[in-house]
């Protein structure tokens, strides 16, 4: 298997340019973030923050200062409302399972949107085993939640509602505040959670304004290191911890805190919010150029998700008809352009992206989808290069498809 990968990599030699657009799945980490992190491995604060010596106290101070900063970026009241977790997956697991278990006496019904990320969807599947039932609220063709159905679904048994702020695949920005007001009107006891991972650093996220009880953010979605995220838990909201182990500085997540990653996440947040407007404008500009260029240059292409201000500024997701997505990701990779696809072939099951299916895309449209996210670091030249190589890549895959697979 390793030999195969070596051959695949060899096929990428002599690329004239590389443009990384798969920022949904992992990102580069800027030098400034790494520089901030590295000393915490060997020079300072490398101790366990619960222990009584200098290196422990240094770690403790750093973690608390980081939590303070993240809490400010999120508009939280106190730093104790922030729990660092190993990522978005763990934060969403903690939010859903922890809130459901701790509040089971209030009810066993959960309400989520149909287009929640897998780490929410699958947790609700797991919660079935513990007696919870989940209603999935449908979305329209742009991915907006059906608020009427949401209203119908919430009742006095509803313990928890979870709706992402910005969808990770199609970028649609939900009217979270409005949706959660509807939930609280029907049942003030229902806890509300939002996965804000794809909104943080892109649109303003303020937990106080949103009136959410729980919110997830993730480091690698904002050009921070992987392996770290956070869950905001409003003061007074009961959440059970979901893992057992040595409790350190955080009551909801056991184990030794990862100081360098927490520092990296915090630095990445600072960089995202410093010149926030300009950063967002930069990703929006290159994203618009990318989407407009694709729609202009290719026939039979559809934009997936919402348009304009209701779309996350970095998200580009298009369905290219008569073109299988996994094949296209490989073809583009051989030209130095890195994207992902909602095709079943790039996934384990023969089922395409549940998000694209939920917005009413045909299976063939979902299989021909590619997802790209721009960052503040992309340049016009990067996008020009993508637009230069994409038509011929699509042309070649469509040439293999011929008239097969047209439904």
């Amino acid at each position, binding site marked *: *298997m*390793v030999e195969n990968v070596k051959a*695949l990599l060899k096929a990428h030699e002599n690329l004239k340019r590389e443009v990384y657009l798969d920022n949904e799945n992992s990102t580069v980490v800027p030098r400034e973030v790494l520089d901030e992190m590295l000393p915490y491995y060997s020079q300072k604060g490398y101790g366990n923050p619960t222990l009584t010596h200098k290196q422990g106290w240094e770690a403790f101070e750093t973690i608390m200062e980081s939590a303070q900063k993240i809490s400010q970026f999120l508009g939280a009241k106190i730093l104790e409302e922030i729990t660092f977790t190993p990522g978005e997956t763990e934060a969403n697991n903690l939010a859903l399972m922890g809130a459901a278990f701790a509040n089971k006496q209030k009810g066993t019904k959960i309400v989520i949107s149909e287009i929640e990320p897998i780490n929410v969807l699958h947790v609700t599947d797991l919660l079935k085993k513990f007696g919870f039932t989940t209603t999935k609220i449908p979305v329209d063709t742009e991915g907006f939640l059906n608020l009427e159905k949401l209203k119908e679904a919430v009742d006095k048994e509803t313990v928890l509602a979870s709706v992402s702020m910005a969808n990770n*695949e199609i970028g649609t920005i939900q009217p979270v505040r409005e949706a959660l007001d509807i939930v609280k009107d029907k049942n003030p006891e229902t806890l509300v959670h939002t996965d804000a991972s794809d909104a943080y650093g892109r649109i303003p996220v303020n937990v106080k304004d949103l009136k959410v009880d729980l919110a997830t953010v993730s480091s690698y979605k904002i050009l921070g290191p992987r392996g770290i995220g956070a869950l905001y838990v409003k003061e007074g909201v009961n959440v059970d911890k979901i893992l057992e182990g040595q409790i350190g500085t955080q009551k909801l997540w056991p184990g030794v805190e990862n100081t360098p990653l927490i520092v990296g996440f915090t630095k990445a947040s600072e960089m995202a919010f410093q010149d926030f407007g300009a950063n967002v404008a930069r990703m929006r500009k290159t994203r618009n150029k990318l989407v407009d260029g694709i729609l202009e240059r290719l026939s039979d292409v559809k934009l997936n998700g919402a348009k304009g201000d209701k779309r996350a500024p970095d998200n580009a997701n298009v369905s290219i008809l008569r073109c299988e997505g*996994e094949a296209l990701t490989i073809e583009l990779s051989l030209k130095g352009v890195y994207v992902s696809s909602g095709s079943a*072939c790039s*996934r384990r099951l023969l089922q395409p992206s549940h998000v694209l299916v939920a917005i*009413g895309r045909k*299976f063939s449209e979902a299989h021909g989808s590619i997802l790209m996210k721009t960052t503040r670091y992309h340049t016009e030249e990067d996008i020009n290069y993508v637009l230069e190589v994409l038509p011929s890549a699509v042309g070649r895959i469509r040439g293999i498809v011929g008239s*097969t697979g047209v439904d």
Partner: protein
Amino acid sequence: MSRVPLPYTQKVLDLFRNPKNLGKLEDANVISIAGNPACGDMITFYMKINDQDVIEKISFESYGCAANIATASIVTEMIKGLHVENAWKDVTWKKVTEEVGGLPSVKFHCGILAVGAVKRAIRKYYEQKGSVPDWLPKDFTFEEKQALEEEELAKKMSKRLKAAEEN
């Protein structure tokens, strides 16, 4: 999105980049399709089989991933010039997988689908001819069954989608 690593072999990559026998065949007398666009996995074979039951020409089109393209392409090379009986007996999905240097396990179904499509073509050829040779088994082979199963899954998925839309 759930994903698995897909370390394709050099051979798969070569065939993906330079597929052999690609495209429609104008003088084909048998055309067979397997798979379904709903699964994102579909192959069409075009064959010209002569009076001596020899596969004189063969080409393919593929709506699918690199493994789908590579296995379809290698199958055309494996059976071109063979008597249909030999094509039926010699070509199994395991051999196809070997010929492309192996496939990640989640991609085995691509080779299975390609062989299913070939077997389907051979049955169709004899149906068209109006005579069924003794060596041709009445029961579906493993590959044909799997192709059917994949198509059934696609139908179910489409049905489920329609039902969801109506609700």
